[in-house]
């Protein structure tokens, strides 16, 4: 896997990109059909590594040819991303995924063909380039958009600025997509709480739950971004903080937890830097629904929920866990979900004053 040190020299990174270009040019000079070799991504080429308890990319690779009507577009897009990245590194500039899309987007003169039609294409090409170059997106100087917030008893240094996460008012600190360069100055918190919902984060932040519970609270909206996952990993690895995940009681919540803990299928190539096998699932469990009398807030499963449930039951990292299979059974039997927001019906601060302290005291978490 890539050298994760952010300090991998500029010169070295430029050399890697230049070599990709040179190799393609050599194919052309030899009058061969130019190709790129890319490790296959997707469910078919990921393995659950029992030892590290993370999802790892398999061995299978595929060749992407320029002279193939099915490949030429992606081939060109990948080269476009490589050229863009080289430019960024040379000039010590960073760009976001969104603006990378705009920087690459153009219509080929004399045609109706756009190099890229939407951002998913550049996003994929960037992931491809990560696999080809063995450099991470951050090392390619491309960042995701800011997403998510953090608050708690921690002081950090970011680009020379000291930031106290406990003195940031109602919004908390906006987590950048690249957290490699921040330095933890003082960590008083005893654990980390990750919320699936930003509304819950706002609730907990207003109640200063992090102060009462001596913790760090983090949230995004939906899936945790790379920046958040790397931040969680660093807090856990560098300061031995337990990480607890709190999501809706549904299959999508389970997968958010899964991605944080085991890594995701699409980013299996960077699991080393993002996965956090030590993370624990706090809730909502089906038991919580009973215990905290949330049954009035049940929302019936739709077909997509049931479909997704089937897929997740088949993932190796769940299949072999008795405790998770039991939880999924319960969930399926219930045939309905409950969202975190249901707590507000029991009183605005019910979650911080009752649920969280009780769960922590009880100390029972799904692994």
């Amino acid at each position: 896997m890539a050298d994760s040190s952010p300090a991998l020299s500029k010169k070295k990174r430029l050399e890697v990109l230049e070599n990709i270009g040179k190799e393609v040019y050599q194919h052309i000079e030899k009058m061969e059909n130019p190709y790129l070799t890319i490790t296959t991504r997707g469910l078919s080429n990921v393995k659950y590594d029992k030892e590290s308890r993370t999802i790892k990319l398999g061995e299978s690779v595929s060749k992407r040819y320029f002279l193939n009507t099915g490949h030429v577009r992606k081939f060109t897009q990948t080269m476009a991303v490589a050229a863009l990245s080289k430019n960024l590194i040379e000039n010590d500039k960073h760009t976001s995924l969104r603006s990378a899309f705009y920087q690459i987007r153009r219509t080929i003169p004399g045609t109706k063909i756009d190099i890229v039609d939407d951002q998913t294409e550049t996003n994929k090409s960037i992931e491809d380039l990560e696999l080809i170059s063995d450099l991470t997106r951050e090392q390619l100087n491309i960042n995701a958009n800011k997403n998510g917030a953090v608050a708690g008893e921690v002081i950090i240094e970011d680009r020379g600025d000291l930031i106290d996460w406990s003195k940031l008012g109602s919004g908390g600190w906006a987590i950048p997509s690249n957290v490699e360069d921040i330095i933890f100055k003082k960590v008083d918190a005893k654990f980390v709480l990750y919320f699936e919902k930003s509304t819950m984060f706002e609730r907990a932040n207003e109640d200063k739950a992090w102060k009462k519970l001596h913790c760090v609270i983090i949230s995004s909206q939906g899936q945790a971004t790379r920046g958040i996952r790397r931040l969680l990993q660093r807090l856990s690895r560098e300061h031995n903080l337990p990480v607890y995940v709190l999501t809706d009681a549904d299959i999508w919540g389970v997968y958010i937890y899964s991605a944080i803990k085991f890594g995701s299928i699409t980013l299996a190539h960077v699991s080393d830097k993002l996965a956090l096998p030590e993370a624990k699932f706090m809730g909502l469990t089906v038991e919580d629904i009973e215990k905290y009398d949330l049954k009035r807030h049940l929302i019936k499963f739709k077909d997509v929920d049931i479909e997704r449930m089937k897929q997740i039951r088949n993932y190796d990292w769940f299949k072999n866990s008795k405790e998770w299979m039991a939880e999924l059974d319960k969930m399926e039997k219930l045939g309905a979900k409950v969202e975190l927001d249901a707590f507000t019906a029991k009183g605005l601060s019910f979650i911080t004053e009752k649920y969280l302290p009780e769960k922590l005291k009880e100390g029972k978490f799904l692994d």
Partner: protein
Amino acid sequence: MEEIAEELAKNQRAISVTEFFERNKHLLGFDNKQKALLVCVKEAVDNSLDACEELGHMQERQKQPVTLPEITVEVKTTSDNYQLLDEKQNVAQMMVSKSMFTLIFEGKSQEKQMRSGRVSFDFNNVRFDISDSNDKLVVLMNGKQLTMRKNAPIFLIRVLDNGPGLLSSKMPDIFGRMLYGSKFQGMKQNRGQQGIGIHSAVLYAQLTTGKPAKVISKIKSAKKAKMMKIEINIAKNEPIVVEEADTDFPYESGTQVELEIEGIYVSGSKGLDEYIRRTALINPHANIIYINPNGERIVYKRLIDKLPVEPIPIKPHPHGLELGIFTRILKDSSQRTIVSALSEELSRVSRPIAEQVVKSVGLDPKKKPQEVSREEANSLLKALQSLQLMKPQTDCLSPIGVEELETGLKKQFSPEFVKAIQRKPEVYRGMPFQIEVAVAYGGKITSERATLMRYANKIPLLFDAASCALTKSFTEIDYTRYGIKAENRIPLLPAVFVIEITSVWVPYTNESKNAVASYPAIIKEIKLALQELIRNLSIFLSRKHRSAVFQERINLFEKYGIELAYYLSELTGIEEGKIKKKIDELLEKRKDEIKLNVEQSLDTSEVVSNKVESDMSRGKEEEE
């Protein structure tokens, strides 16, 4: 047609011809004014083409130089047409052409010129005064003002040919007597068989405008042409020659007919222009000049200096006979006994067969054919039809010809691809028939869906498409099996298909003669012809598709190549132009391989469409 004529004759005594015509005009094709205009033109043009070909064939037989058909068709509006009403009651009809006024009242018509804004008519003490003040017409009947309702306009139809011309002694009967020429004269493929007869058109003109037909005809031996204005005496079914004169004529021989009728001129697939266009397409040996009501002069030049083969009259075969015709054959026979009448007048009936049949129904073999009753004729016919007889001869037809069809299509559409198929003659119910089909693709044809042009004995069929065997066969083909996309069973191609049935007797579904009846033998032949045609078209299309896809791919790689050169230059610092040159070299070098890939990918999918998709996500990458 004979049946209608018979009906007409029978009913004539009980009710007036006018009334009968009114009641049955839908059968004759006069049920709407748009169709009426077309039918009248068609009658005249069919007669002209038949006459010209007859002349040519006669010249061929006599080893003389052959005169090829020259037809001029002119259709123009002549007058505005008004219905005059008194208390919502129809009283008279008035036609106005500049200052000429024609008034029709109680079946009589008068024509007068307006002078100083006034004109008056007198019909047996009924007086009409018409005045024009400030371009507004006022009509008084016996002093009482009438309301005017504008009707369909009046058209003058003029059809001129260089055929053999008509004997002036025959002219009145040909145009002015309803049953003229109905004696059974054997079976021969011609256009006239389809028609309702020119006299019906004359009658329609008379009923709608009160104007006689104006006919000019010249035979080669005459110095001058004869002009006659012919009316029909409706009560007696007799021609009246209203006016007669000698006049000049543009050809050595030929005929010109002028009819004035009420009609509606439309453009589009059921209009006059299209009818003429389709007529020209199927008659490439004729020069056709057409002046339409907008004054546009359209010339369809002769493309082939050769007459179609002369059709041979044949005796009717019992399997295709209907009782009405059979009784007429017996009545008209010059044979003395029923046995000799059967063996002489019918085809594939030998003397022993005739004797056997006559015996089997218990008739006296010596009975005169003219004395056979309708009932006896019926049993005879049934007995004949129950026998296994030899098929009729089939060398009596005059199909259009492959070269003629292809030439016509090439000239009209300049297509990318053209192909005609001619089947061998076949037989349905004792009637010989032959199928020809053709297709033209691309060129001036830009429609998304294919058009079907139906013809029977070289006459375009424009109406009743849905009930026609030709349409049915066309839409029963599974085009997708040939890799051609279709919608509602019509191929989605810029193409024109032609289907022609040639027969001594085309079986129409009804008397308006616009749809061919669905005999299984006919449908089968059409389908076989179409299948062969479409196989040919499909081969052309897939070749075209292949080269288009190949070109598309080369273009695609070239375009992406420009981009690739730029990015590679950015990455490696090598000069962009140099990389571009290398990529072009690469494309040139690997061209054959790309071509082969196209062949292979198309062989597996075999999907051909007229639009080449620029789908680049095809050929999914192995991994995802």
